[in-house]
């Protein structure tokens, strides 16, 4: 169980765990989303508004907060996934070195950390925009 092994924890281990946790959460949400949005094919405007519209069944703190969290998870998962894809093709990995003690893996070097930081800055900006909309919706903005 790599997720729970706390030995030798580094940033990449936390990212690995959080990537999987966010992936499972978003997958669970995806099924609910497909079912609830799929209703548009079968209902009229009145029924839709009573469920999804302003003042409807889903217009509550729990729903809006979970929606916002899912957006945060999606953004993290996407950008971290992009970092992983770039690593898969060798971008920013650096040259392999001889395994002399203390061996520092080049794949965990400053370039990858810089890439991660850049992506998290982008994620922060996007999440900030989402947060503003979330707060606006909570305060009853139309």
């Amino acid at each position, binding site marked *: *169980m*790599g997720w729970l092994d706390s030995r030798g924890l580094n940033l990449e281990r936390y990212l690995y765990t959080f990537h*999987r946790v966010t*992936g*499972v959460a*978003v*997958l669970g949400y*995806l*099924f609910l989303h*497909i*079912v609830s*949005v*799929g*209703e*548009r*094919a*079968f209902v*009229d*405007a009145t029924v*839709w*508004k009573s469920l*999804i*519209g*302003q003042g409807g069944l889903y217009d509550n703190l729990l729903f809006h907060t979970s929606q916002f969290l899912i*957006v945060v998870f*999606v953004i993290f998962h*996407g950008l971290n*996934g*992009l970092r992983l*894809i770039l690593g*898969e093709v060798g971008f920013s990995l650096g040259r392999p070195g001889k395994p002399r003690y203390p061996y520092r893996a080049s794949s965990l070097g400053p370039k990858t950390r810089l890439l991660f930081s850049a992506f998290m800055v982008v994620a922060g900006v996007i999440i900030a*925009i*989402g947060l*503003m*909309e979330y707060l*606006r*919706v909570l305060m009853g*903005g*139309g």
Partner: protein
Amino acid sequence: MKESTLWLLQILTAMILLLVVPIHLILFTPLVGQGFWGGVEFTNVITRARESLWTLLYMVFVPAALFHGMYGLRVIVLELFSLEGRGLRILSQSLLVIGLLAAIYGEYTAFLTFLR
């Protein structure tokens, strides 16, 4: 299907999602899109669903997201329970069936709304 092919599809669907998800989310931002309530308002939902490009986008989005998610879940379950042989087959086929059912429903409702 070979594991390497499945992994390649995982990366391809990831790249599709990296393009499509921002488009989907931008819709609900107030400045560039319609805002949250504007985005979920029934008239706007149906108007979007009746446009060819949006329908095409959703019909690509849903199977890509489902494949990506279900394959990711398969990897997690495989690692947690060290499945192989019969167990692996049951897991793979179960996830495939669930994913296909969800994809068929998603495609069906997208197409139905397009014709509405």
